[in-house]
């Protein structure tokens, strides 16, 4: 019931934040309408970071405790993170074309490291399919999840460490909420979008976690022969 309320709330919040970002705030003086893409681009990027951070933390949890819940959290973070990273890249390309004159530039460190981040976590999801034995799969995935997490700070600080097309970090500037400083309406639209997307992120994380737990249970039950149909489909664990 609580998840359903969360889902409905997320839907309403995303619709409201989108309407405000597209039609409520004025267009930027320099970039015009294209600047509105910033709201969804930055919100997606932060939730991608958060998702992969959750995967990394859950990977440590699995390696230390061997708790199946940790593997389910890690999987949820990776899958939802891939969705938000793809959204970030898409929004960035759509913003870049009118502002930079190009959809993509491989020489830009932020763009390239973000593409690498997407590839790493798609790889994480693919590696999970290499074995049907849940514990072995979780251990392999946890190692990959931790190695892939090294790219998160590289993506974030790439705009500080190297020169490229991309602007500096939007958040975490020492003296302003937004960098470059922006009118209050722009900040409000961004925070609203971030809040709305966070609700949607939470709903997806909770449901993906639940699905992963059910899948794990089904695999374990099949191994013990409680579900004969599934038992035939899942190979016996190796000695």
């Amino acid at each position: 019931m609580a998840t359903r309320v969360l889902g409905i709330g997320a839907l309403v919040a995303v619709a409201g934040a989108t309407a405000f970002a597209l039609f409520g705030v004025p267009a930027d003086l320099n970039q015009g309408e294209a600047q509105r893409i910033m709201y969804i681009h930055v919100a997606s990027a932060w939730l991608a970071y958060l998702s992969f951070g959750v995967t990394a933390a859950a990977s440590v949890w699995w390696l230390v405790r061997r708790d199946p819940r940790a593997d389910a959290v890690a999987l949820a973070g990776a899958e939802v993170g891939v969705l938000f990273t793809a959204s970030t890249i898409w929004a960035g390309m759509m913003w870049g074309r009118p502002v930079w004159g190009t959809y993509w530039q491989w020489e830009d460190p932020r763009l390239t490291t973000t593409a690498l981040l997407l590839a790493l976590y798609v790889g994480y999801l693919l590696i999970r399919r290499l074995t049907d034995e849940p514990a072995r799969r979780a251990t392999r995935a946890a190692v990959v999840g931790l190695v892939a997490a090294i790219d998160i700070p590289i993506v974030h600080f790439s705009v500080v460490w190297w020169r490229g097309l991309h602007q500096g970090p939007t958040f975490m500037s020492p003296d302003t909420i937004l960098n470059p400083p922006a009118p209050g309406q722009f900040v409000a639209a961004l925070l609203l979008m971030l809040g709305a997307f966070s609700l949607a992120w939470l709903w997806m994380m909770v449901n993906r976690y639940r699905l992963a737990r059910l899948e794990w249970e089904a695999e374990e039950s099949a191994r013990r022969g409680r579900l004969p149909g599934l038992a035939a489909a899942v190979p016996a664990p190796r000695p």
Partner: protein
Amino acid sequence: MIDLGTIGDLAFVVAAYGVILGGTGLYALTLARRLRGARQTRSTPASDQPRPSDPPIDRRA
């Protein structure tokens, strides 16, 4: 000739949002369906699960 507008105008921005929101919505719907399916499988008694020895279902009939 259809005027598709200019790259960077509001229609372009709305389309960019549409792809992200559409993709996210599609993922959410798929996730909800997968979760419902997994719950139904879990609540189905073992005796009702398909067995390897069961004959294949002839869907042409």
